[in-house]
């Protein structure tokens, strides 16, 4: 295609946008509504996902060391745990530290035990993939000099299955929303194209190739997508900015989980909204014009 023709298509598509005033408005509104829904939804899902990841990362394996193990045996055990497949990191916490933790939690009275500490030395290990904690814990349990291995059995299985279900539900909802959006938009664009099927017929009769006819429509779909993305991007950005400003300090006190940082998260969401708008517009136009090209 020659540059001159490209320029012609470009002008043509912009002219259609302005000449088909109400149809443009209808299509852009449809894109706006759906992208807004998708944008807000993605925002919520990504944050829930972050919370889920944080929760998962908190899962650790507590390896209680045999009382009889001497320093050399402990060092050997640390090596062995570190070399176990699926272990991301391991930390040693001698029994003195363990007692200090108890003192912090239950009070100074427990200092009595400092003379004769009844606690075990402990390793804290984390699995590379938190979902495989159980498997990794069992492997560690089979090593020498381990007295007991705890990883919150029963509880974490429930947590993981809950997190997995909510992730899948979110994904399905987003896909369903996108599908609806595409359907809605391709229908709206189809109406604008039906109104111009005569134009297409004439173009074909004077010898225009299919791509020559298609490109202005596809560009038009792209503009519709971009125009439709403006309001959702503005709203989602403002919304997240304010939510982040209000909620983050409160969540920080709770120390349990936190929101995704404003940047780069919001830029990623915006890019996604824009990209989806363009894809939906282009795809919608492409599908709609296809029907009328068989003249």
């Amino acid at each position: 295609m020659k540059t001159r023709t490209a320029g012609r298509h470009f002008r043509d598509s912009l002219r259609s946008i302005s000449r088909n005033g109400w149809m443009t408005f209808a299509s852009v509104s449809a894109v706006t509504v759906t992208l807004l829904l998708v944008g807000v939804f993605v925002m919520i899902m990504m944050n829930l996902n972050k919370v889920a990841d944080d929760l998962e990362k908190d899962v650790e394996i507590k390896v209680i060391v045999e009382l009889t193990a001497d320093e050399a045996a402990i060092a050997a055990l640390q090596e062995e745990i570190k070399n176990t497949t699926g272990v991301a990191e391991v930390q040693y916490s001698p029994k003195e530290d363990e007692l200090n933790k108890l003192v912090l939690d239950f009070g100074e009275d427990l200092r009595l035990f400092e003379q004769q500490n009844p606690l075990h030395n402990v390793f804290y290990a984390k699995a590379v993939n938190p979902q495989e904690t159980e498997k990794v814990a069992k492997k560690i349990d089979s090593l020498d000099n381990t007295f007991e291995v705890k990883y919150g059995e029963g509880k974490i299985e429930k947590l993981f299955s809950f997190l997995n279900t909510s992730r899948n539900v979110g994904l399905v909802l987003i896909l369903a929303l996108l599908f609806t959006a595409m359907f809605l938009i391709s229908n709206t664009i189809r109406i604008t194209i039906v109104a111009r099927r005569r134009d297409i017929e004439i173009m074909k009769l004077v010898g225009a190739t299919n791509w020559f006819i298609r490109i202005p429509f596809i560009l038009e779909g792209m503009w519709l997508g971009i125009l439709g993305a403006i309001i959702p991007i503005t709203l989602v950005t403002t919304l997240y900015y304010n939510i982040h400003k209000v909620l983050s300090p409160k969540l920080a006190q709770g120390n349990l989980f936190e929101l995704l940082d404003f940047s780069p998260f919001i830029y990623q969401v915006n890019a996604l909204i824009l990209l989806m708008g363009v894809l939906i517009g282009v795809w919608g136009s492409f599908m709609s014009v296809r029907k009328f090209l068989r003249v």
Partner: protein
Amino acid sequence: MIEMKNVYKKYPNGIVAANGIDVEIKQGEFVYVVGPSGAGKSTFIKMMYREERPTSGDIFINGTNLSTLKNSKVPYLRRQIGVVFQDFKLLPRLNVYENVAFALEVIEETPTIIRKKVMEVLELVGLKHKARMFPTELSGGEQQRVSIARSIVNTPQLVIADEPTGNLDPDTSWDIMNIFEEINARGTTIIMATHNREIVNTIRHRVIAVEGGLITRDEDKGEYGYEN
């Protein structure tokens, strides 16, 4: 230039519009296609620019076999053929100049050549002074002249006209015929389906009569031959 061999066309609804048509039309001829409504005239003409495909048989235009022509090649066939319709088929949102220029933009001509050629054909059809007007601001005859200008701007060897005077009053029809005569005088083949008895009987050319999907009469300098 045009050759049809045993062309048969049956529409999905069962109507047979061409039932074994054999015909040859040479470069530079002027041919009237006559016949009652629904006799297969339009189908006969539409098959020449591949708006309809024959069910069987072969159609050659300048040596290209339309029966085996790929869909993707159809635009290139249409660029060699100018088509004029009863209802003009102008783009309503483009002015006269843009409507004619459109046929050249499609084939990616340079702006200089487009301007030159468009002004030339508008001169030929006598509408140079109305180049900036829109189709709705023109009379039927003027719109038809625009559509003729569009069909020939590309200097095709063949112009096909499907009842070009069907919507026009007698005086205007004669104007349109004069334009076709002039185009034909330059060596362009013209095939015109028509119901206009007076025109056929006055400006004598070859007449092909189509009835029941068959060519029932084919004579040089023939008559219209129907009472209407």
